[in-house]
């Protein structure tokens, strides 16, 4: 295989993992923007998406589309229970306390999943076969196409929701100015609840569509969560284009690095990028410096 062919191949797989990172990253951004919390349990919700699907598919023998829908619903429910039990009861929480709580919560979710579901690695069947499709000199799996399509749909719906519905606008208002949002009559706690619902379902979706390619088990959430976090940081914790580009960039760099340098460095690349961004451009790669008049 020529080098250019190899690179084309790395780009395809990089973009598809990047899309997954973007979905997870947007979940981080939505919760951060409405609560100023980095929800480190986000990765576990991704894991739950995959594991619930396996459960509905293999244990209850439901058809795949139904299993997927139920898994998204169950994960969303789990995310909302998590919010009710951990975030809501706190009277005057500091961001640090909240972040530690989400880390504790993630360990708990992982533990429970391991106890109930075991330590095995499970494979989800590809949504529509695994016959590779040849595009130019690169091959692409049908599952890659599913990933691109579903990610695009989810991100577009998300964008439309935040841009055009009054609830979406109210959620943005809470992110911009919580106090003023309360004064116009927006129930801030309800908006936090909604943000957990949206980011849980996006996380679940990410965990489900990636499972046929990478397998899933009780502990995949840690790495996927951290990669999604990287994507969100590259994107300046924006709930939109920035994080999508951040995810795609991360996926592609990771894949090129693994292919051209050494696959041992795959994860290291993500964290080196994370550190570089935090040191050099903490506002994110695509965010212009804010100009505001007071």
């Amino acid at each position, binding site marked *: 295989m020529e080098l250019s062919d190899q690179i084309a191949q790395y780009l395809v797989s990089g973009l598809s993992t990047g899309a997954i990172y973007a979905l997870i990253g947007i979940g981080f951004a939505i919760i951060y923007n409405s609560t100023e919390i980095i929800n480190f349990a986000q990765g576990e919700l991704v894991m739950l998406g995959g594991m619930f699907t396996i459960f509905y598919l293999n244990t209850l023998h439901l058809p795949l589309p139904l299993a997927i829908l139920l898994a998204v619903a169950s994960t969303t429910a789990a995310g909302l229970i998590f919010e009710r039990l951990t975030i809501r009861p706190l009277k005057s929480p500091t961001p640090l306390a909240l972040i530690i709580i989400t880390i504790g919560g993630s360990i708990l979710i992982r533990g429970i999943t391991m106890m109930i579901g075991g330590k095995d690695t499970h494979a989800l069947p590809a949504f529509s076969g695994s016959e590779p499709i040849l595009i130019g000199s690169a091959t692409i799996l049908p599952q890659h196409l599913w990933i691109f399509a579903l990610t695009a749909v989810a991100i577009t719906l998300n964008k439309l929701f935040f841009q055009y519905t*009054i609830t979406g*606008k*109210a959620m*943005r*208002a809470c992110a*911009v*100015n919580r*106090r*003023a*949002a*309360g*004064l*116009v*009559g*927006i*129930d801030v706690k309800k908006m936090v609840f909604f943000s957990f619902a949206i980011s849980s379902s996006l996380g679940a979706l990410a965990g489900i569509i990636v499972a046929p390619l990478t397998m899933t088990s009780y502990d995949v959430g840690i790495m996927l969560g951290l990669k999604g976090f990287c994507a969100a940081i590259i994107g300046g914790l924006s709930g939109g284009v920035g994080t999508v580009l951040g995810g795609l960039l991360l996926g592609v760099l990771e894949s090129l690095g693994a292919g051209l340098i050494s696959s041992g460095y795959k994860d290291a690349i993500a964290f080196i990028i994370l550190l570089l961004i935090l040191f050099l451009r903490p506002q994110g790669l695509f965010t212009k410096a*804010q*100009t*505001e*008049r*007071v």
Partner: protein
Amino acid sequence: MLKVKNINTYYGKVHALKNVSIHLSPKEIVALIGANGAGKTTILNTLSGVTPMQSGSIDFAGESVGALSPDRIVKSGISQVPEGRQVFKGMTVAENLELGAYLRFTAREPKELIRKDIVKIYQLFPRLEERKKQMAGTLSGGEQQMLAIGRALMAKPKLLLLDEPSMGLAPLVVQEIFAVIERLRSDEGVTVLLVEQNAKAALKMADRGYVLETGKIILEGNAADLLENPEVQRAYLGKEKKDIWER
């Protein structure tokens, strides 16, 4: 219309409002003046349900609103324009106005009615219409103040609470904003409770006034009388004792 009786509000252990009682009649403009930290903003926040009172009662239009949550209070007809404008900076002017009507949207009020009211706000503040697609954070201070007032009006309040609308603005802009407040009263019948450090300007516009010192109402009366009151002149209008005596 509004009857506040003996309210006490605490910030932790700090007793911020001590037996404060005020009342407003329909279509009145009442000024609340006092030094920094006297508790002016606290009164507004207690009325808005942001810092709930410990004891006392608040009756508004025949309804007890003292224990309601901020959104229920907005629904009952009290809107606050907070100190420092607090517009949604990363959102457009039009979106800011829409969010002012948030509770009307969730109450499923016809969207045309809400849109008509946005047009009304643009008539009141033509400069906001010119900038409706612009991010609120890029507006000048005066324009942000207009937007904050417009946003509060979108909830169709019967009582408007204004916290330091003149803060940091050029005198001409202050005049413009005060003129709009007077128009709101005469054209729309809005009642206004105005908190101001700019005591002179506030008392000139208002019908009545209250003077607040360290959490207590120490004086109340007709705005014209308060303007002439030597104690008010010395403490809040910047006149020296000497000037007052020599007159």
